[in-house]
């Protein structure tokens, strides 16, 4: 990120919408602008108040071509979408949007909320970032507007000008334990590990085995005490080693031992300095190529030559059609990639280059019946195997139903 100091010298800022685009309903424009400002107020002490008359700190307008005294001009459809000025008097803080664009509140044209959130970053003192995952990256990227659009890079940037949210005394929260059969379950990272698959979430991991109908749930630190929680990516390479990633560091693990001299920075693998973290990684053991997913981009690494392949990064959405923009986690199993994004899982055939199935994230845990692997103290403490718990439950239920049917049948026959 980059910024211009000192930013605004006050935390209560006003904004005024001077005119509206005919492309959208006025209420939608109001909402997009309000939400775009909230993006920044959620991570800073800044407060925004809308005014309808007079001079506001941030004057918002839709304009075309050469407009007023503004030193920067618009260029008709496409090209330049908007511009904004850093904090200050006069034009300072003002944000202009090119009326020649097609503004929308969805992904059909240019999403006003996303562009406005970017421009307000300038209004508050941020410059462009060369982190491709950040909102302040200068090129328009159609993201899911319902999700919070700031990356850590944006948050660090704005907080370096205004500081973080004011501290409020909060109730101490117990760290929540994830439930494997929760339909909204997401994973931090997934990797194969010899004959098993490991699903990482927070401080814990679930382990399933290819040849045993079994699930284990345990603390990451009980396997590898030196590893941090909340890891972000993991994969098994062709040399019986797994690599674990968090922020710009990675660890190498062989068997149950973390290799010495780790963590190492991800730049030693070949990433440029602007890459700050990796979202997901997977090795195709047939081609010996590893794919790294960083925001909306995908990098490819050659495990034989140990170098990054040329021509990367590429857009995930283009290279893996059908997956969407970003990936939470991925692993390779029996010739397929299993991509996880939000509460969905995509089975992807890398040879045919298409998605063959879409499933729930927890499809590997056979969750048809209520099953909460993480809630039982005995499971947590002793690594008890939940499959047997489930089996007993099924048997008892079946026996109960069978008994009722038997009694009803006998009553009818009499």
């Amino acid at each position: 990120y980059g910024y211009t100091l000192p930013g605004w010298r006050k935390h209560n800022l006003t904004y005024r919408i001077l005119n509206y685009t005919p492309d959208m309903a006025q209420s939608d424009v109001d909402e997009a602008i309000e939400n775009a400002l909230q993006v920044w107020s959620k991570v800073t002490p800044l407060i925004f108040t809308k005014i309808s008359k007079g001079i506001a700190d941030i004057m918002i307008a839709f304009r075309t071509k050469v407009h007023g005294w503004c030193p920067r001009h618009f260029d008709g459809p496409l090209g330049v979408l908007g511009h904004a000025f850093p904090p200050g008097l006069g034009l300072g803080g003002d944000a202009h949007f090119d009326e020649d664009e097609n503004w929308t509140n969805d992904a059909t044209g240019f999403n006003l909320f996303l562009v406005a959130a970017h421009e307000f970053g300038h209004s508050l003192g941020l410059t462009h970032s060369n982190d491709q995952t950040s909102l302040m990256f200068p090129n328009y990227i159609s993201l899911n507007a319902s999700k919070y659009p700031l990356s850590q890079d944006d948050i660090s940037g704005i907080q370096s000008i205004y500081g973080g949210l004011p501290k409020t005394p909060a109730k101490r929260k117990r760290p929540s334990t994830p439930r494997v059969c929760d339909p909204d379950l997401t994973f931090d990272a997934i990797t194969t590990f010899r004959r098993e698959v490991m699903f990482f979430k927070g401080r814990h991991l679930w382990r399933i085995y290819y040849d045993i109908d079994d699930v284990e749930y345990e603390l990451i630190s009980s396997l590898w005490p030196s590893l941090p929680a909340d890891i972000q990516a993991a994969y098994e390479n062709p040399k019986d080693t797994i690599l674990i990633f968090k922020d710009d560091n990675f660890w190498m693990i062989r068997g149950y031992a973390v290799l010495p001299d780790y963590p190492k920075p991800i730049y030693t693998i070949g990433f440029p300095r602007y890459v700050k973290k990796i979202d997901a990684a997977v090795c195709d053991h047939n081609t010996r190529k590893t794919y790294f997913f960083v925001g909306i981009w995908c990098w490819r690494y050659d495990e034989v030559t140990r170098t990054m392949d040329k021509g990367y990064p590429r857009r995930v959405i283009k290279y893996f059609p059908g997956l969407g923009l970003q990936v939470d986690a991925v692993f390779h199993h029996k010739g397929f990639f299993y991509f996880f994004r939000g509460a969905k899982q995509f089975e992807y055939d890398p040879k045919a280059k298409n998605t063959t199935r879409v499933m729930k994230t927890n499809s590997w845990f056979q969750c048809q019946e209520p099953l909460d692997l993480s809630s039982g103290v005995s499971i947590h403490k002793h690594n008890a195997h939940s499959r047997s718990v489930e089996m007993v439950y099924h048997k008892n239920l079946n026996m109960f139903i069978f008994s009722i049917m038997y009694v009803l049948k006998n009553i009818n026959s009499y």
Partner: protein
Amino acid sequence: FPTNQKMESEESMQLAQAYLNQFYSPDVEGGYLAQARNRSLTEGKIREMQAFFGLTLTGKLDASTLEIMKTPRCGVPDVGQ
């Protein structure tokens, strides 16, 4: 073919020039004498732009550089103030 290719490259050059003027404010001069100076200035600005976007620094208008230039974006310069 050759005529079309020439036109295409001229169009790309014009687009690049407009892009660099917008975001990298090169002081491009008119007249024949200034042409050589402008060429190296343009190359330098293209390199600057390629460095910002994490592209290979060629100073030339290659496909990936043109693609970035054609992508809709914010009108605030990346460099300078």
